[in-house]
C-alpha cells in the first residue's frame, strides 16, 4: 500500500516538474476576441501600452481596442454578442462571468460602434457607457456614437434603455428611433431620419466583405449601360 502511494506521488512529482503548476495563478477573465481586423487596429491589454492587433487575439476585462482611419474591428463577446468598431473609434471592454452568468460593458471613449447584442438571460446585462450616457441593452441591434457634446443611439431592433448620467433621466429607445443625450443633461428621442437609419445599418454591417459585380449591357439603340451589383460575402 505504501508503494502504491509512493508510486502515485512520484508520478505527480514528475508531472509537476515537467509542467510546474501555478496553484495560485489567477487568470485574467477573458470577455471575447477580435474576430476581424481591417487595416489600422490597435489593442491594449489592461495596464499595458498599445500594440498592433491581430485577428484572433482574445480580449480580457479592461482591455482597449482602437481603430484608425478607414479601419474596422469586429469584437465577438463570449456570449456571441457582436460589436463593430467603426473608424477612429476607441473602446474599453469589461466583463465578469461566474456560474454561466456573463455581465459585460463597453466604455466608449470616441467614435462609433454598431452592435448586435444576443438576447440576454434574466440576470445578464450588456451596457454601453460614455462620459455622458449609459445604454442598457438586452437583445437588440443598432449604432452608438459619441462626440464631444452629444451621444447618439439609433436602434434598429427592439428596445434600449438610454440614460443621461448627469441628470439620471432615462428613456426607452425603440426600433426606428434615435436617442440623443447631451453633456448638459438633456436627453431626447425622435424618429430616426433616413440618414440615421442608414448609418445604423451600415454600422451593423461594417467589416463584411463587400464585393461588386459590374456588367455592361447594350440596349436596342446600340447604347451601353452599366449594371452594378453590390453584394456581401
Amino acid at each position, binding site marked *: 500500500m505504501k508503494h502504491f502511494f509512493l508510486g502515485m506521488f512520484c508520478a505527480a512529482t514528475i508531472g509537476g516538474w*515537467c509542467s510546474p503548476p501555478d496553484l495560485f495563478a489567477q487568470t485574467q477573465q477573458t470577455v471575447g476576441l477580435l474576430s476581424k481586423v481591417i487595416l489600422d487596429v490597435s489593442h491594449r491589454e489592461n495596464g499595458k501600452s498599445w500594440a498592433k492587433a491581430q485577428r484572433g487575439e482574445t480580449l480580457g476585462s479592461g482591455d482597449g481596442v482602437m481603430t484608425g482611419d478607414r479601419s474596422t474591428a469586429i469584437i465577438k463577446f463570449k456570449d456571441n454578442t457582436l460589436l463593430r468598431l467603426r473608424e477612429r473609434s476607441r473602446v474599453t471592454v469589461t466583463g465578469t462571468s461566474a456560474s454561466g452568468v456573463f455581465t459585460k460593458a463597453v466604455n466608449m471613449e470616441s467614435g462609433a460602434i454598431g452592435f448586435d447584442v444576443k438576447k440576454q438571460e434574466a440576470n445578464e446585462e450588456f451596457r454601453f457607457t460614455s462620459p455622458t450616457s449609459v445604454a442598457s441593452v438586452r437583445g437588440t441591434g443598432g449604432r452608438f456614437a459619441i462626440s464631444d457634446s452629444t451621444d447618439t443611439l439609433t436602434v434598429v431592433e427592439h428596445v434600449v434603455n438610454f440614460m443621461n448620467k448627469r441628470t439620471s433621466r432615462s428613456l426607452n429607445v425603440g426600433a426606428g428611433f434615435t436617442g440623443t443625450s447631451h453633456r448638459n443633461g438633456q436627453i431626447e428621442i425622435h424618429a430616426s431620419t433616413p440618414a440615421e437609419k442608414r448609418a445604423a445599418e451600415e454600422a451593423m454591417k461594417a467589416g463584411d466583405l463587400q464585393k461588386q459585380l459590374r456588367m455592361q449591357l447594350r440596349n436596342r439603340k446600340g447604347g451601353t449601360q452599366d449594371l452594378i451589383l453590390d453584394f456581401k460575402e
Partner: protein
Amino acid sequence: MIFLRPVVSGILLLCLAAAVSAQVSTRVVRVTPAEAPPGAPVRITVELQQAASIERVLFLYRPFGTSLYRTLVLELLGNRATGLLPADALIPPALEYYIVLRDRSGSLETYPQTESANPIATPPQNTRRLQVMSGPARTPLVVFLSPEPSAIVAPEDVLVSVSLYRTDSTIVRRSTKVLVDQTDVTTSAVFSDDIIVFIPSNTGMTLSPGKHTVTVKLFDRNGSPAGSSSIFFTVPGEARPRLPESGERRFTYDASFMAETRHEEVGSAGEWYNRAGLQFRGNYGDLRVTSNLFATSEEKSYRQPQNRYYIGGELPWIKVGLGDTYPDFPSLILSGVRVRGINSSLRLGYINVDVAYGSTLRAVDGAELARFPIDSLSRAQQLYPYASYAQINPTTWGIYDYGTYSRSLFALRPSFGSGETWQFGLSWLSSGDDMGSIRYGIRPQENIVLGADFIAKLDDDRVQINGQAAFSAYNNDISSGTFTDAYIDSVYPNDALKIKNVRDILSPFITVNDNLRPLSLSKPATAAGELGVALNYFDNAFRFTYLYRGNDYNSFGQTFLRTDIKGFNVVDRVRLLQSQLFANLGFERLQDNTANTKVATTTFTNLNVALSYYPIPKIPNVTIGYSRYNNDNGLLTDTLSAINDVTNRVYLQSSYDFEAGARHTAMFTISASKREDSSPRRLNVDNVMTSLGIGTRYRIPLQTDFSVALNLNDLPTGAPGATRRFNYTTLMAHARYTPVRDILSVMATISPSFGDFERTTFDLGAEWFVTPPMSFLFQFSYFKNVGVPNEDFVSLRYRYAF
C-alpha cells in the same frame, strides 16, 4: 454427532442467506442524475460505500403510467454501479425507482427503506423519482463564436473560436477537444480562460473548397464524454473530390488511465482496495477501436468476476467486441446480462446478423462442511432447517455449501431491414450450466428461447408499431440427463411414443426429463409477447401496449422479467399552451393467473394523471400528479387468499431559478401515499415525504447546496392492521469552492439524519488538476452511527488522459 466449529459458522451463514431482510440501505451515497431529458437513453450512476461486500446492484424502475417495475442490473466497478436506462423508459413527468443491493450472503438492502421482506417481488411504497423534463429546451453549453454556422468563409479568413462560459463545474474546460474535419487540433489551439481559439492558417492547415465541420467535445471530471457540438461552414470555390493523400487520414485517439487506492473501516474491520482502469478510443477514417480494462484487488476466485476486459473494433457495417459486453437483443430474450466472450454485429441494411457467445457465470465451487451419521439427520435438520443436505452413502450424510456452475450463453439474431422504416428479426438463445465445472453443486439448469420481433415506422416516424414474441423451454435440473426409453416406458406408458418423439426433437438443444418446462403445449405457459403502437399527432404522444407473459416463461438472458401477467397499458402526453403545459395520462389493466393455476385471478388496475407547467417568462415551474393502484382478486375479503388493496398517491413538485445577490435554484417536493388493505392481512401503509432544497452559485467560484427532507411512515408490523411509526428527518449542507479555476477545488458535506433513523455523514474532498491531463481526487467520508460502530472510508484517485 460431530459438528465442527467451522460447520456451525457456515450453517449460521446459510441461515442468514435464507432469511433475507430488508433494511434501510446505508450504503447508497448518491444516485445521479436527478433529472433527464425524454426520449434518449441516460446513464444511471449509483455511488456506494462498503461496496466490497456487495455482489449485485439492481435498479428497479417503472415509467410513468405503468405499474410493472423493470429491472436494470447495474455494472458494479469499484464503488460505483452504472447502467443505461433505455429511451422508452423516460416518459415525462418522472420515472419512479428504487435500488436493491444484494451482498455475498444473499441479504438484501433497499434504498429507500421498504417494509417488504423481498423488495424485488414486492416493491416498496416509498420510492425515488427521476424527473423527466418536458419543458423548454436547454441552452447549449458550447457557444460557437466563429465561424458562424453555415457561413461561407475564405480559407485565409477561417478563425475557429468557441466559448465555454456556460459550462458548469462538472465540465473540465482544459480537457475540451476541438476537431476540424475529424482532425484533432486541440494541441494547436489557444485556451484563454473559457475561450478557445484556433487559426488554421497559422498552423499550415489548408482548407480546400467545400463543406467543413468544427466539432467541440466536452469531458467531465471523470474523463467521460459530457457532450459534443458541431457546426458546418463552407469554403467557397469549386469543391473537388478529395483523394486520400498520405498523411491526410490520421489516427486520432483519446485514452485515460485511472488508479485508485481506498480504505474502508466498517465496524472494527478495515480493508484496503486497489483498482486501476484504462480506457481507449481510437478513430482512423471510418474505423473505430475501443478498449476498456479494469482490474481490482476485489477479484477473487470465489466471487463472480470483478475485473473487466473489453476490446472492440467497429466499421459502419460491422462491429466485433471481445471481452465483457452487454449484448443488445429484444428485451424478452437478452437484455442487461454481462457476457464474457464475443459480441458482434453485421449491418448490411437489407440483412443483419447479431451474435453473442460467452459465459455469464463463472464456476465457483462449493464445499462439504461436515459429515454425520444418518441417525443424526433429523436433529440436524431441526437445528438448521435452511442448510443443504445430501446423502454420501447409506450410513452417512453431509452438509454442503453449494457452489455456482459456470454458465455459457449463445444468442443469434438475423434480421431484415435496417430499422429506419421497418425491420423483422428472428432470435435464438441457448444457455446452460456446465455440470463438470464444479464438484459441489446442485440443480444445474438449461434454457432455450426462440423469438421473433418487428418494427414499422410510418409517416416520418409519427406512427410506430412494434412487437415481439418468444417461446422458452427451461429445465431446472439436468443432472439426471435426458429420458431413456426404458424410463419413459415405465413412467409414461400411455404417452410413451409421443414423449419419445418430443425427446428426439428437443434433445439436441436441451435436456429432456421430468424437470423440463413446458409440460404441455396446450397452454402457452412458457410464451411471452408484447405489441405496441405509438402515435405522434396534434401535439399528442400516444402509446398503447399489450403484453403477455406466461407463468413459466424463462430466459437466462433476461432474469428479472415479471411473469404470469397479461394486459394492456395506455399512455398519452399532450402539449398545450405553446409547450408550456403538459398533461400526462396513463391507464393500465393487468391480470395474473395466465395458466389458471391460482385460486383466483388478480386484476391490477392503475390510473396515473400528471400536469406539468413550465411558464415563460420564468416563474416557478410546477408538476402535480395523482396515482391510484387497485389490486383485487374478487375473493371475499375475509378469506385468507383474498387480495384487495388500494393505494392512492398525490405529489407536487416545483422548482424556481432566481437571482438575489447570486444565482439560486430552489426546489420543493411533497408526496403522500396511503395503502388500504382490505384483506385479512391488513398491511396498511401511510407515507408522507417532503423536501426543500436550495442550490446557489455565487459570483466568486463557490457553490452551495442546502436541503431538508422529512419522511413520515406508518409501516405494517406483520400483525393484521398493526403499524409502527418510522419517521426521520435528513438535513444536508454542501459547499464546493474553486480557489484556482480548473486547477483546484475543495468540497465538504455534512448530512445528519435524526428521528427513528439516526446517522451523521461527513464528507471532505479535494480535486487537483496538476496539469491538464493529470488529476488527483481525494475523498474522505465519516459515518457517525447510533447503536452500531462508526464507519469511514478514504480514497485517493489518480487520473491521466492522453
